[in-house]
């Protein structure tokens, strides 16, 4: 084919494409009806389990005390929201949620990046693999298993406190002291997730052209210079991407973890929005109030996720669909 001919088909293709776009729905259905059928199960599940519950949100605006039909409950507008925000618990559970979630995100990412950089320095492959295998494992266990393991380990008579005692350190009430509890949550979350969190950074580090390191070494750059000028810039875009994506979860402080580990003694610092909804709203039969608090969380959370995906698209060219 000569260099001049391709122009003709391209110009011809324009009206063709326009015609294809205006093809009637009927014709598409005839040819590709199966594609629509294939989407049906997912759409049905979506309708039933994601959209149908939205109808229940009207509960947030009625007065309902657990008796009688919800449909008959009187409309009170923003009353439930006013009750929550006027009460003593709003500031507490929102504050706890933000503190725990942001703590987990920032410290967790720092831990993951540090571990990835350290593992990247290991030359002996067998050691590298062993470390990765072991440190990634806890990520795949439920908070039930971790909780059951840790409650014993961290109790005041548990092995950790006995070890503290043996070397003359004071006892720490990890799970029964309001001031320590949020840090226990954050630390356990980091402990559970750091190995897995490191994988994405390790993948980015593997992607760095080894010639860069070689050239830097020839130029006399030591280990720290290479880390600072090659490794870190090499994973910067991944760090930025994770920061954007994590923004979407600053209202998710870890419902299951808190539910497994908390107790009334630490409600002051450990009760988060999700556990509050579950305990006061669901178990306490305050369905209307619980729905209102849930709607508040969902609305803000939705905005945050939109923002986080927009930022990820904008700054890291990341798209999920």
């Amino acid at each position, binding site marked *: 084919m000569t260099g001049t001919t391709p122009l003709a088909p391209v110009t011809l293709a324009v009206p063709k494409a326009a015609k294809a776009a205006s093809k009637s729905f009927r014709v598409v259905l005839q040819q590709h009806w199966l594609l629509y059928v294939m989407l049906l199960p997912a759409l049905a599940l979506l309708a039933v389990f994601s959209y149908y519950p939205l109808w229940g949100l009207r509960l947030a605006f009625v007065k309902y005390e657990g008796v009688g039909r919800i449909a008959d409950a009187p409309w009170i507008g923003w009353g439930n929201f006013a009750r929550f925000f006027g009460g003593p618990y709003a500031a507490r559970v929102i504050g706890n949620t933000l503190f725990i979630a942001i703590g987990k995100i920032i410290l967790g990412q720092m831990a993951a990046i540090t571990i990835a950089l350290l593992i990247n320095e290991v030359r002996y492959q067998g050691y590298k693999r062993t470390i990765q295998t072991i440190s990634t494992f806890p990520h795949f266990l439920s908070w039930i298993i971790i909780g059951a*393991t840790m409650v014993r380990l961290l109790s005041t008579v548990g092995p950790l406190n006995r070890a503290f005692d043996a070397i003359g350190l004071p006892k720490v009430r990890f799970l029964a002291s309001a001031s320590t509890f949020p840090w226990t949550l954050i630390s356990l979350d980091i402990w559970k997730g750091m190995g897995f969190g490191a994988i994405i950074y390790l993948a980015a580090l593997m992607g760095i052209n080894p010639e860069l390191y070689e050239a830097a070494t020839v130029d006399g750059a030591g280990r720290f210079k290479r880390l600072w000028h090659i490794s870190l810039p090499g994973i910067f875009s991944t760090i930025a991407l994770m920061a954007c994506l994590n923004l979407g979860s600053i209202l998710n402080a870890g419902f299951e973890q808190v539910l497994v580990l908390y107790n009334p003694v630490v409600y002051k610092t450990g009760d988060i929005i999700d556990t509050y909804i579950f305990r006061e709203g669901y178990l306490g039969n305050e369905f209307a109030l619980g729905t209102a608090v849930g709607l508040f969380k969902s609305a803000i959370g939705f905005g945050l996720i939109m923002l986080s995906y927009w930022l990820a698209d904008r700054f890291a060219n990341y798209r999920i669909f």
Partner: protein
Amino acid sequence: MAMIEERGAVDVAVDVIIYLVLGLLALMCLVPFVHLAAVSLSATTPVATNQVWLWPVGFNADNYLYIFRSDRTFLGCMLTSVERVLVGVSFGLLVSIITAYPLSRDNIHMPGRVAIKTLIIFGMMFNAGFIPYFLSLRNLGLLDKFAVLILPGAFNVFNTILIMNYFRGLPNEIYESAVLDGASHLQVLFRVFLPVSQPVLATVTLFSTVSHWNSWFDGFVFLRHVDQWPLQSYLYGRVILKQIEQMAAREAAHGTVSAGLSEISPEALSNAMVFVTMVPIMLVYPFLQRYFVTGLTLGAVKE
């Protein structure tokens, strides 16, 4: 080259520190479970007096014997969990696959595609919250039914996107030649695409196996009777909330269930149960490890 390979003392020292720090971190991840296992295999007195560290003291397997011989509820819940994994994973996988296929065919003009995608994304991003969700399941008559463990999570958007992106990455030639041969979309999907999609299918299967095995909140809240619970819900009630434990202690006091097993302590028994629950994860873990990276590259980075 020899000049570069030669390393100073400082460099070696840094290496040693790095190896030590990483080794310590790995130990931190391992030791709690070693302790757990050690307690579960120890005799009653050393457990009660906190003498067990990383090795069983007064080795005894009665706790495990009790679980497998006498704890009907535990075994029943375990069976429920196995059933849940088998049904939940295969049904979820099927839904993800048949949803991913049409979404991956970007070249086919499909009116409504954008609307459908928007519905999916919005459904994923905005949820009604726990109470409306619970009430919906109640209205649908799903409470106290096994299906409540399967259906609500069957359409997993992340798994679908993962498979969709994989299908998109397959060479267009294999799609076109199948279509030229007169294959229908179902044939293309099941006869042409699936046989070459083993990595992504393995990834989704393994990740959803783990997530079904680990789920406990849904069983605990949506199913009223302990006998219907999956294993991890049972552990929540028994080991974390310690509600069922008292019941079991009463049974044991009547001498009916633990005949011949004398060395059982509540704490060691709990640990044994937790350890048994961990075993399936340990078994799939080596396979899981091969697919970590596939599971992480969820989003597509635009060219």
